[in-house]
């Protein structure tokens, strides 16, 4: 009985893992990159690179934002002021306008330099890190709802694969540090074990909480049971700040924004503000919504204050003292999104995410290798094996290449081209498609090696491309202390180095299995001992 349990878990691990592994790789890859979502948005927008970190007080920035919006967009139905953070140096000022006959409202985004309070010129149209963030759970070129269900199914499979993996590999904790790169398929198994064990708490956490982020699509049932109008009713109860206020006919002549902020600062002087939203700013129903900054607290929703724009009195607060259910649910989402993380933790998140990518990749590669090893010389590989191998190569090598393509497109596309943001994304998918086609044609070791070197060269040239097309380069970033931009260049170089190493590794395997001097030394020592 016990034996058959392990056998069924092994079977489950293999098949659950294989069925969804490419989609999972995409989700993990995009998710890992999205830990640097705002940083990528910053990198993609060279016009804001020169902005110094903000030293102006928040209150002055809010006043400047309101003044700017009052001048440029008095007739908007919503104003949005995002305050600068270490990850986003500029003040974001956006305004939303109603469109005729039922079309979706239109947002116009602008940015202010927090030090000079002037509008930032020369912005390019780009999705930045938001592309990867959306790709992580909405995929692309696809119905959003269907994509999210697929992502949920893949995540569930991931969770099952993790649990069954722990059950079957009892030895993974014993051989935790073991990595034997010279031993063929064993090396892939070691890589698979190592990358899964070293970040096991992270893998379990990120998969579980990932499912929780989409939970009301997956399981609306408790809300449907307890509320008359289901999830909608629950949301109205849970998110009081999302209730709409309708515009009235009367115009607002003297807004009371200042007295609202005075009241706020008097009563919550320590509270940092994340963003300010004003609904119907020039209408009698004007409301000011203040969202507090959570800092490093493990909390997803922001504390919230709502003031009347006409009288300046406090109408409503929410989440100043969250209930235990809120703490649990919000905490899960907060640890998933990692918005709370300072650079140190953010990099640890990133390393764990990369470990997850390696875990999935090594799993798929191992499956294909095992099947191929078992083939007899005269046997030709089945269509299934060929498909798996092509998908492996196309996904594992193609995605990083496509990501580099996205960054190149951002720097090289002309600034005034129509639909520029869409073209950047198109570049990503064209490169990926090209890799997939190449993988479909041939996928032997030489092609893997070619892809590795191609990746290495592409990533290596990226900092140079950046230096040629913008005003800064790695040296100036370091001298000026712009660590976010400097780490981009360094990360590009590190990626290039990793791929070059892999290419070299593959070439040594193509020629012959040679014993490296270092290994020889250890071997000798072992023999002596």
């Amino acid at each position, binding site marked *: 009985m016990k034996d058959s349990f392990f056998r069924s878990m092994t079977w*489950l691990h293999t098949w659950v893992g294989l069925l969804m592994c490419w989609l999972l790789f995409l989700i993990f890859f995009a998710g890992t990159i999205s830990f640097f979502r705002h940083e990528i948005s910053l990198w993609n927008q060279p016009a804001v690179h020169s902005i110094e970190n903000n030293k102006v007080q928040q209150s002055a920035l809010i006043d400047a934002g309101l003044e700017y919006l009052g001048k440029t967009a008095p007739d908007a139905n919503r104003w949005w002021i995002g305050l600068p953070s270490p990850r986003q140096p500029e003040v974001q000022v956006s305004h939303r306008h109603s469109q005729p006959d039922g079309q979706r409202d239109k947002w116009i985004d602008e940015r202010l330099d927090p030090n000079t309070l002037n509008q930032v010129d020369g912005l390019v149209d780009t999705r930045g890190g938001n592309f990867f963030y959306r790709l992580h759970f909405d995929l692309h070129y696809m119905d959003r709802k269907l994509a999210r269900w697929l992502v949920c199914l893949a995540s569930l499979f991931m*969770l099952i694969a993790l649990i069954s993996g722990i059950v079957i590999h009892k030895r993974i904790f014993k051989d935790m540090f073991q990595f034997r790169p010279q031993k063929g398929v064993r090396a892939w198994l070691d890589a698979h074990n190592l990358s899964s064990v070293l970040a096991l708490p992270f893998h379990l956490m990120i998969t579980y909480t990932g499912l929780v982020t989409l939970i009301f699509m997956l399981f609306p*049932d408790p809300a449907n049971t*307890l509320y008359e109008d289901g999830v909608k009713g629950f949301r109205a109860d849970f998110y009081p700040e999302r209730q709409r206020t309708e515009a009235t006919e009367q115009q607002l002549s003297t807004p009371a924004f200042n007295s609202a902020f005075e009241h706020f600062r008097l009563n919550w002087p320590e509270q940092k503000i994340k963003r300010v939203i004003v609904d119907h700013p020039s209408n009698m129903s004007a409301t000011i919504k203040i969202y507090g900054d959570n800092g490093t607290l493990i909390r997803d929703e922001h504390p919230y204050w709502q003031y009347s724009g006409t009288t300046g009195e406090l109408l409503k607060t929410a989440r100043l003292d969250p*209930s235990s259910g809120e703490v649990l649910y919000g905490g899960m989402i907060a640890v998933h999104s990692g918005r709370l993380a300072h650079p140190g933790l953010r990099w640890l998140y990133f390393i764990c995410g990369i470990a997850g990518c390696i875990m999935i990749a090594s799993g798929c590669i191992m499956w294909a290798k095992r099947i191929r090893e078992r083939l007899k010389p005269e046997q030709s590989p089945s269509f299934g094996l060929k498909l798996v191998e092509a998908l492996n190569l196309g996904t594992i090598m193609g995605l990083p290449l496509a990501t580099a393509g996205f960054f190149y497109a951002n720097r090289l596309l002309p600034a005034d081209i129509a639909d520029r943001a869409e073209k950047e994304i198109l570049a990503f998918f064209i490169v990926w498609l090209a890799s997939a086609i190449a993988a479909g044609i041939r996928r032997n070791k030489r092609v893997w090696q070619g892809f590795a070197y191609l990746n290495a060269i592409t990533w290596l040239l990226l900092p140079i491309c950046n230096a040629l097309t913008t005003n800064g380069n790695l040296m100036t970033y370091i001298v000026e202390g712009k660590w976010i931009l400097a780490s981009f260049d360094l990360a590009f170089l590190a990626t290039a180095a990793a791929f070059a190493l892999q290419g070299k590794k593959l070439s040594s395997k193509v020629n012959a299995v040679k014993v490296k001097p270092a290994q020889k030394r250890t071997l000798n020592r072992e023999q002596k001992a």
Partner: protein
Amino acid sequence: MSQADNALTFQYRLSVLSRFCAAILGGYFFTAYSISLLSLLLPTSKVDAVLYSVCLSILIYSCVFIAVFSVRSLIHIWAALVVSIGAIALLIGYIQGGS
């Protein structure tokens, strides 16, 4: 895996398909009903009851999924799923009717 190679018969494939259906769909409905019941039973506020039960849902789902693949007899699995889902649904109906 070697069993799989030896016995790639139609019947084997059908039983695998049935097992995946039981795990994915059966597990889904079992979880959906049991967390609905849980949300009714929790003595907290309505918002908290919903939040607690949805946070637990994935744990229940994955346990059922694993259980489906570890029990040998397919008939037992389907019977257990159908009976438990029915019982939970009846209980929910009873509680909702009573209140």
